[in-house]
């Protein structure tokens, strides 16, 4: 039998001013199971709370209703109060007679009072059906998984490790470093990308709390915050990295040359290779598609003996440590984590989608990132800018902005943020490489928001003579050795025609391939551009709707290096904060299943936004729903769709809501 106490707050005159407290008291006293009523000037004040505690003891109350301000205001406060009084904090209900009554009906005391009475009635009806709820405590693995070894992933991993927790970083390429490693210099300071990145890469590789899996991918993810189980697939390198010393003989001697992915086709690599000299780990992998011996074996397998190429196996012969391992296969292993940081970054937009620019058709139409490789001292041309077609030094270079940005027609409505800056950087760098170079930059707007950014773009124009033309390019075509660029200068409203040696397309950012599949494995959401979605764009920028999964860097949207690094650190702090607890406390207001009623139609599993409902088989063979309280967020969708009412939501049970509805007519 419930013994309910009702405590009505005057809130000074805030409530008492427009609600007849005496009448509410009278009415409340008559309500079923109410054994005690009292009013206070300020129930939230210390004396107010004290008198609740006393009344609970004096009148053996086991349920409390506080009629005062909105629960969003003081529910927590009063939960503590009743807890101090020795009751379970969830045996409390708040009747919101201020925000939703006295303040909105101050003009009609009569009806405001009637409404107050019924608001109290609702709370009484509900609280009578409240019962003790206890937060469950779930242990957690203080170990983080970082997916993606770009700059923000590296930063996140380092920060977590330095906070004293183990970190596993998974990178699908043979080396960490990501896009930043491909850059020559960085705006606006123009310091060399490698010089600031590679030390971090090395620090990470050598950190005693960091385990690095390169050339590996996340295969599946189970579990929930604090208790993720992740399957990682280590792709076969055909090279034993424990014995390999990275001496380099193999990749110097390998006869098979293929276009280098890292150099975006501007240069070549061998079949056994490291992507670039400062790669981490500095140990090679064998590209099984191009490796001659692998081809040979495939021919043997296919029985086309006659066409088969020579066996090669040069690397194997020359390797001083005998680390070549032709038999090595993919390995899959499972690891436990408490938190996951997704830092999968971006890839550049494929400009061939713009037929009119002739990317892929004309060798001298290249992307900004390709130019980076051409300018990079450790790049294929040793930093000498030669154009792909004939190796000539370009004198006239035309830049086209917003290629794959701000273009509805190409389903890329967003601004990629960095292009304006790197075009300016390129204009400056090209002049520094060769004073005779003249750069023309076709832009829509110059977006240079950021510390020292605007100054930087000005320098490009004023000190380095880059000519900025506002307008889009309509067509690029080859005429002899030149590229004819047709466009419009929208400021003077005239068509312009330029003849260039090299055209650089400022291709925008898009999420890395495979991010959608990953998002689905993680059950986190992505937007129409396939960028991952943060829990709140402003207030929770590195969190997701799934607890324990955080975001960093360009996988969320276009970011430059400083932003990506900052986000890496931010995500790291979130993970570290999570690890600072010894267990995770779950909100007790979760769904629960009455297995005797459950028919196993499993509609609930289909509607649950958090995949929190799985199935369990009973001894009698029936299969019924079962809630994972770690994943359940308490939305109650399942309870609403359950026809047999077998699944219910603690804190908002069918009994409680039903009692509220009917109480209005009792």
């Amino acid at each position, binding site marked *: 039998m419930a013994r309910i106490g009702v405590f009505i707050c005057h809130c000074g005159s805030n409530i008492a001013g427009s609600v007849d407290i005496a009448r509410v008291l009278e009415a409340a006293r*008559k309500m079923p199971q109410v054994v005690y009523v009292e009013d206070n000037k300020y129930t939230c004040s210390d004396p107010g709370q004290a008198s609740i505690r006393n009344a609970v003891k004096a009148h053996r109350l086991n349920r409390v209703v506080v009629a005062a301000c909105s629960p969003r205001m003081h529910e927590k406060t009063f939960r503590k109060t009743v807890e101090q009084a020795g009751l379970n904090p969830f045996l409390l209900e708040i009747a919101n007679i201020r925000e939703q009554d006295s303040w909105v009906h101050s003009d009609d005391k009569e009806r405001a009072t009637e409404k107050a009475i019924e608001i109290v009635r609702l709370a009484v009806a509900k609280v009578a059906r409240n019962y003790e709820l206890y937060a469950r405590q779930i242990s957690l693995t203080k170990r983080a998984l970082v997916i993606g070894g770009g700059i923000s992933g590296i930063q996140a991993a380092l920060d977590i490790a330095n906070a004293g927790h183990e970190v596993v970083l998974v990178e699908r390429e043979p080396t960490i470093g990501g896009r930043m490693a491909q850059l020559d210099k960085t705006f606006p300071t123009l310091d060399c990308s490698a010089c600031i990145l590679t030390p971090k890469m090395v620090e990470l590789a050598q950190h005693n709390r960091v385990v690095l899996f390169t050339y590996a991918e996340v295969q599946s993810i189970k579990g929930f915050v604090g208790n993720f189980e992740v399957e990682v697939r280590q792709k076969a390198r055909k090279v034993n990295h424990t014995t390999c010393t990275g001496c380099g003989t193999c990749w110097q001697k390998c006869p098979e040359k293929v276009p280098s992915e890292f150099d975006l086709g501007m240069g070549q690599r061998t079949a056994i290779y490291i992507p670039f000299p400062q790669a981490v780990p500095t140990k090679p992998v064998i590209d099984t598609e191009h490796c001659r011996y692998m081809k040979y074996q495939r021919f043997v397998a296919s029985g086309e003996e006659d066409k088969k190429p020579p066996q090669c196996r040069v690397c194997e012969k020359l390797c001083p440590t005998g680390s070549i391992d032709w038999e090595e296969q993919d390995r899959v292993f499972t690891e436990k984590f408490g938190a996951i940081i997704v830092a999968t970054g971006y890839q550049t937009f494929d400009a061939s989608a713009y037929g009119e620019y002739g990317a892929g058709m004309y060798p001298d139409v290249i992307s900004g990132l390709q130019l980076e490789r051409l300018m990079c001292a450790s790049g294929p041309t040793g930093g000498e800018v030669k154009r792909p077609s004939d190796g000539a030094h370009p004198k006239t270079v035309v830049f086209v902005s917003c290629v794959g940005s701000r273009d509805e027609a190409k389903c890329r409505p967003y601004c990629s943020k960095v292009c304006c800056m790197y075009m300016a950087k390129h204009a400056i760098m090209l002049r520094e490489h060769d004073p005779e170079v003249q750069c023309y930059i076709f832009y829509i707007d110059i977006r240079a928001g950021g510390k020292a950014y605007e100054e930087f773009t000005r320098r490009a124009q004023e000190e380095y003579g880059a000519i900025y033309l506002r307008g889009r390019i309509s067509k690029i075509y080859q005429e002899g050795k030149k590229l004819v660029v047709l466009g419009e200068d929208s400021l003077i409203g005239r068509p312009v025609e330029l003849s260039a040696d090299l055209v650089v397309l400022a291709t925008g950012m898009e999420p890395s391939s495979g991010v959608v599949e990953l998002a689905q494995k993680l059950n986190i959401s992505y937007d129409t551009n396939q960028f991952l979605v943060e829990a709140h764009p402003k207030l929770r920028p590195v969190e997701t709707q799934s607890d324990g999964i955080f975001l960093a860097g360009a996988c969320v949207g276009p970011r430059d290096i400083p932003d990506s690094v900052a986000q890496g650190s931010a995500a790291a702090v979130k993970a570290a904060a999570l690890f600072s607890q010894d267990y995770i406390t779950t909100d007790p207001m979760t769904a629960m299943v009455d297995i*005797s009623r459950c028919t196993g139609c499993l509609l609930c599993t289909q509607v649950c936004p958090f995949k929190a409902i799985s199935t369990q088989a009973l001894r009698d063979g029936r299969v019924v729903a079962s809630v994972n309280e770690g994943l359940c967020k308490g939305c109650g969708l399942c309870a609403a769709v359950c026809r047999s009412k077998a699944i219910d939501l603690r804190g908002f049970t069918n009994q409680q809501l039903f009692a509220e509805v*009917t109480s209005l*007519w*009792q």
Partner: protein
Amino acid sequence: MSQVIAREDLSRWLNSLMEERTVVVPVVVGDMVFFRPVAKAEDMTISRGNATLGPKGCLFPLSHTMFTVEQEDGDVRVIPSSLEREMVVFGLRPCDAQGLAVFDLPMLAEPADQYYRERREKTALVGLACAEACAECFCTSTGGGPHDARYMDVMLSEVPQGYLVQAVTEKGKKLLAKAPLKDMAVQAPTPPDVPRVPTDGIVAAMRRTFADKYWSRLADRCIHCNICSYVCPTCYCFDIRDYQQDGKTHRVRSWESCQAPGFTKIAGGHDPRADKGSRMRQRFAHKLLYFPEEFNNVLGCTGCGRCVRYCPVNIDIREIISDVQKIGGG
């Protein structure tokens, strides 16, 4: 010489009865017939055969408030419901009247059910003899007959000149006091032939078939839809529940059915008649075994044939009776 009421006089008489009584008559709704109180006798229809639902609801309502509890600061008042006006049920058939007689045995046996007793005492039954038997009727096999007047207060039987009137009880005589009756010599109509079912020794046979797997096989096609109990003139199972509304508590009694799953479920969740078979056997054992054993061989069935007519899967009590005779025959 016997008394006759002309067709046109019938409604006049009923209308006169309405002045101080509620008069319940057969009313046609679509292709169904119900017993309902009417404001004027002209609304009634005298149809062939049996009403969809018998008049049992008039004395034992589908759902009614037994009493209301009011709380007025501190003290509690209990207000029992009661029937203000007397009631006349007109046009019921012998089998339904016999059904009420069956009702009386348990309901009026002390301690009597006060709500039923009140209604029964305040109600007079004006019956109509059956001119023809329906295909599913078998009243003559259950101790009744198409012209059986025993359980009526007044019995009418259709004749060319109108209705032959027979006052059976004192209550009946009072009703007829103001009735426009004519004295004339009329031949009492002969009862129609009613198909017979062999019910002799059924009680013993039921005993012997109690453990037979016949029941569970029979129950295979039963969907325990409860219809049989609801249309049956002798089924009196009920359930009671309290309802809060407008500051009052109403204690409500409603029909229930022994065929409903969970009808016999007890605290702790155990259900002694969890399977269809035992529920089905319970129903027929109640009519053909327990009831006669309890109340000196009166069958708990009056052969109205409604359960036969309305069962969606044709579970036919007549078939069952003869099957049981075969299986458990001496």
